């Protein structure tokens, strides 16, 4: 190629030197953004837990007043009880269903899988409301059914209790156990089972002695995630524990935020939650990381399905039972309530109405605003999180900067911060002057971005890793710069993965409650917060209609996600 400019060494050196400076600047910018989003709120949280509210002087008084109260200590114990109960029940629900789907010939596996996915995308607070309608004392559907069948004058179920709360949270968090165990079982080779069979062990014995022990790390990992979900949850406990007159840590934190706001005390009370979470995640990694034990090599041999005979219907019945508790029943009663004049009057034609939807969509401006807010904030969050994480993943992946891994680590850090703790940190850091962001859309979007940055980073990083660096190098050796390589080759190749990543951030952002509840102002309310307010008013029909709107939109978006990313969409969002 004769027209090619002869490369001159001098020009190259100049460029190289010039390149050093912008790269440092880029690094500083990225670090600054991450510090602003992650480090600063956490540091503020810790610092303010040791500060006097007005003077800012060092004190331990926040800890003394946070823990020097029997009621507050009781809340901590309740949280632990809730977490343990949820983990055990979620295991009881999740493990058998995961085994049945992965290893047996249970019928209608696709349907069960779909319902588990449904449970996964159902916001826990919506499930809780469904269960209030199902098992509210006396008025709940299940209680009415019981009274009609037995002639008893009182129902037997009471959702407003610790067992009620455990059930409600467990039915929405068992998909975590399911996902962990199912993917582990999918990797266990049938040869492992054959080896036991050939030595004379039957199906049941093989399953209990060989198969399940092989996936113990996955089971424990799933239980830990369920436990952490349960203790970090705000919505469902607030809906159920508060009327039942007991507190868990998250509702106690909420109480500290009712006027007067005692953010220092809340910070002191939130720190143990953070520490427990960090420790448990570390434990979970340590357990899952022991590959040799799990025998999960990624290249299992051929897998054969276990024939259950008539037991396959028993298994299917159990899966159906679990899915009824988690999706079918709560969603059915929510749907009924959303189209009812009064939900307690049942399915008669004169009780049917579209007024609830009409009211929300056309009459009540607050609801319209909340719907718009929810999708605008979630969209903005998804763009911000993907943009930031992609820049960082590129820098880390291509080793453009020294200590790039620090950036990657910071990106993943919010994964171990419960939303409620993050929100208090954001409040402590950015509500007061000079930024005074409280009540603005900005603080919500920033907090959401931080909260979902790990999801975005994991997806962006995976997308980048799937593209061989040689694809870009081929551009550069032919004479294109790095930007040309990114524009012409990299961007078109990861477009689809990025669309998937965008959805993975967008969907949880639309349902986020625990961080929103601490940061919304009068004009920045989102659907989840509004649902919570409606439940305090006892307006379950309108609430159910709003929940239905949220669900329909989420399901539609999740369906697009399935199209775009394929079947592992759910698995990836769970990790």
């Amino acid at each position: 190629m004769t027209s090619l400019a002869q490369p001159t060494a001098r020009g190259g050196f100049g460029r190289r030197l010039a390149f050093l400076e912008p790269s440092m600047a880029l690094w500083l910018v990225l670090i600054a953004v991450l510090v602003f989003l992650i480090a600063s709120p956490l540091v503020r949280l810790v610092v303010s837990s040791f500060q006097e509210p007005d003077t800012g002087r060092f004190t331990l008084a926040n800890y003394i007043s946070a823990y020097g109260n029997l009621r507050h200590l009781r809340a901590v114990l309740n949280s632990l009880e809730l977490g343990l109960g949820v983990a055990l029940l979620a295991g009881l629900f999740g493990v058998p269903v995961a085994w049945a789907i992965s290893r047996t010939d249970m019928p209608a596996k696709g349907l069960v899988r779909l319902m588990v996915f449904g449970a996964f995308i159902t916001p826990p607070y919506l499930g809780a409301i469904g269960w209030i309608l199902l098992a509210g004392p006396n008025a709940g559907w299940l209680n009415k059914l019981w009274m009609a069948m037995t002639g008893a004058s009182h129902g037997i179920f009471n959702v407003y209790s610790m067992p009620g709360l455990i059930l409600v949270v467990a039915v929405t968090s068992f998909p975590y156990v399911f996902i962990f165990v199912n993917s582990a079982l999918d990797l266990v080779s049938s040869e492992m089972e054959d080896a036991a069979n050939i030595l004379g062990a039957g199906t049941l014995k093989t399953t209990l002695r060989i198969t399940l022990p092989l996936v113990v790390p996955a089971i424990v990992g799933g239980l830990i995630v369920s436990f952490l979900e349960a203790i970090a949850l705000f919505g469902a406990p607030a809906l159920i524990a508060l009327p039942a007159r007991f507190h868990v840590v998250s509702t106690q934190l909420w109480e500290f935020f009712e006027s007067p706001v005692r953010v220092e005390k809340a910070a002191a009370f939130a720190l143990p939650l953070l520490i427990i979470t960090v420790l448990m995640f570390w434990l979970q990694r340590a357990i899952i990381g022991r590959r040799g034990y799990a025998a999960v090599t990624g290249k299992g041999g051929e897998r054969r399905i276990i024939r259950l005979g008539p037991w396959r219907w028993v298994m299917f019945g159990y899966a159906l039972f679990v899915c009824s508790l988690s999706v079918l029943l709560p969603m059915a009663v929510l749907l009924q309530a959303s189209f009812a004049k009064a939900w307690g009057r049942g399915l008669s034609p004169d009780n049917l109405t579209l007024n609830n939807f009409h009211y929300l969509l056309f009459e009540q401006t607050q609801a319209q605003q909340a719907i718009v807010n929810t999708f605008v904030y979630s969209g903005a969050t998804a763009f911000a999180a993907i943009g930031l994480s992609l820049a960082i993943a590129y820098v880390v992946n291509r080793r453009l900067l020294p200590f790039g891994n620090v950036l990657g680590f910071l990106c993943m850090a919010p994964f171990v911060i419960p939303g409620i703790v993050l929100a208090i940190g954001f409040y402590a850091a950015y509500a007061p002057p000079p930024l005074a962001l409280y009540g603005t859309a900005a603080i919500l979007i920033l907090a959401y971005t931080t909260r979902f940055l790990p999801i975005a980073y994991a997806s962006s990083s995976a997308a980048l890793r799937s593209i061989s660096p040689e694809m870009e190098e081929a551009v550069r050796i032919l004479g294109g710069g790095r930007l040309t390589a990114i524009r012409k080759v990299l961007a078109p190749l990861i477009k689809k993965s990025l669309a998937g990543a965008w959805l993975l951030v967008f969907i949880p952002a639309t349902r986020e409650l625990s961080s929103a509840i601490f940061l919304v102002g009068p004009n920045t309310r989102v659907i989840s917060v509004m649902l919570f307010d409606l439940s305090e008013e006892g307006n379950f029909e309108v609430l159910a209609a709003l929940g239905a709107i949220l669900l329909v939109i989420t399901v539609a978006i999740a369906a697009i996600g399935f199209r775009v990313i394929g079947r592992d969409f759910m698995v990836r969002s769970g990790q």
Partner: protein
Amino acid sequence: MSKLALAGLTKRFGEVAAVDGVDLAIEPGEFVSLLGPSGCGKTTTLRMIAGFIDPTAGTIEMDGQVLSSPGRSLPPERRGMSMIFQSYAVWPNMTVADNVAFGLRLRKLPGEEVRRRVGEMLDVVQMRHLAERYPAELSGGQQQRVALARAIVIKPQVLLLDEPLSNLDANLREEMRFEIKRLHEEFRITTVYVTHDQAEAMVTSDRIAVMNHGRIEQVDDPHALYTRPRTRFVAGFIGRTNFIEGRCNGAAVEFDGFAVPRALIAGGAALSGTVIFSLRPQSMRLARARSDAAGAQVPVTVIERAYLGEFWDYVVAPANGALRLKVTAPPLEIYAVGETAVLAIDGAQMAPIA
């Protein structure tokens, strides 16, 4: 002036020297292979030539101008080179024609010329009929042809190939070797070819640089490299061989169980003391009786044999001595294990090694 000159080229990753003081001069239009086992530093050397890696020490010059020196390297996009990657790196978001046209378009050539040159190039690699296909619709060999076309169409200063055939199946690999050789003979582009496959290097190269532990052990044309390996590593890496130790004693070199006149050994006059020789299994002949050929005639016993279809593999032991020699023989020269025979050793094919 040589086209490309590496001088004292070194790359350290932490404590490890991946490339350790490599000197190599490549003439314009020459095809040079870097051959060696994995981890020998050949790919790192290639990537330094391309500009993807900065050297820790030493320089790379092209046409007398320094391209790379520690901390100051011209970025790859300004070197005017092309490269073919192990994974082909054919861009899946572009058609065959767009892939090939990419480098020309970057050079802002007029559309008409781009079309003409892409068409010509696709004819050369017999891919014209697939110009509008996407890479996912092509076989591995076809993708490789696209990568070749894309690299050659810009008439690069230097063409770099990084184990381009290692992902192809055996038959295709053989076909593509000759394809690469044909393209080189047609365009005479200065080429550096990295491979761990000696047959590939021997078919394609004008000269082969054998690398080991980050250093070049020997640079020679394929024939000289095979017949006159200068180091034990080269002799052992290229083909199979016997290493035997000889002691210079007057007019002969004495081995364990036989002796060869010094005059028959190439360069034998200059030898002294104890010397290791590389003796290829193909350079010896088994016979039932002594012949009058020059060289050593050694009575041996067959102690192992294996039939490989194209030839016999025998292991023989000279009658008096503990030596074991691998020797090959044509399929019809059949000896039983335990049979005695005479081994004819041609001194001219014995290579003393360092």
